[in-house]
């Protein structure tokens, strides 16, 4: 006996000051911001506090939109409406230049050439398409 059922609904997260301003930076400035926090250095995306000792964050730090891949996982069989692309792609962790932590994102092209240690650069969505979302960076691409 079996039954197919789909749960489908919109989900709206409120962001708060820290993530909200980080997203505004992506949308309005095409700039990726981190925060300097105790025990970790420059954390991207910014956490709003130190996960090491709970202290208040220090200054905002602008990081570059290029960096180094620290982890990669290729999705060979994307699931409709779950994954960002319908063709195979790679999830990556990328430590952006200036950051001390890695951020999750995706690589769309040349995915089998992506390795730990590969250098990548952000491909930004056009001005009118940026809404204040991690997808304001459409994806990362390998740089030679």
């Amino acid at each position, binding site marked *: *006996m*079996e*039954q197919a059922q789909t749960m489908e*609904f919109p989900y709206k997260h409120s962001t708060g000051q820290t993530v909200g301003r980080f997203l505004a930076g992506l949308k309005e400035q095409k700039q990726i911001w981190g925060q300097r926090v105790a025990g970790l250095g420059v954390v991207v995306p910014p956490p709003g506090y130190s996960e090491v000792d709970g202290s208040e964050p220090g200054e905002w730090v602008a990081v570059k939109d290029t960096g180094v891949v620290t982890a990669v996982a290729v999705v060979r069989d994307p699931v*409709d409406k779950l994954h960002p692309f319908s063709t195979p792609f790679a999830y990556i962790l990328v430590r952006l230049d200036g950051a001390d932590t890695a951020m999750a994102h995706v690589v769309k092209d040349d995915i089998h050439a992506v390795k730990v240690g590969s250098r990548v650069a952000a491909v930004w969505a056009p001005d009118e398409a940026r809404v204040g979302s991690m997808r304001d960076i459409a994806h990362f691409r390998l740089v030679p």
Partner: protein
Amino acid sequence: MANEPPRDPVKYVETHVYLPYHYVAGDSRAGYLRALKDKKILGSKCSKTGKVFVPPVVNSPESFAPADELVEVADRGIVTTFCVVRIPVTGRDLQLPYVAASVALDGASVSIFAPIQECAPDAVRMGMRVEAVWKADGEREGSHEDILYFRPTGEPDAPQDSYIHRL
């Protein structure tokens, strides 16, 4: 270049949740669902304690002993606990307010979830005796939805000690 990101935060992130489920019933649950088509509600009896679980289980979640002896329980019982829902759920078309209840069927040691209708929400109470309203013959499919809802029978309320341990 700015020293900080913009002062005004982006307030919300919108995502779309899409969860397709393909549920495959095991033998125990399949037997329970099939019986609903015949207006029969099955439970299973723990070989160690005699407690009757509805829907049937293979092993008792309480004693871990086998509980595969099937027994039929009544399609009437007692409201053990309930809640009146007045908040809509995005993506679902529900008539508000509605009553979500736990009903201990006669013969069962635990309650099942069921909506209560044909009753003002304010009138629902613990101990209220109810009976199932089934989908019509020919419309039942062997699904939880074969029972449309429970409604009060009008009988006197059950005494608390008859249901308080069957929530």
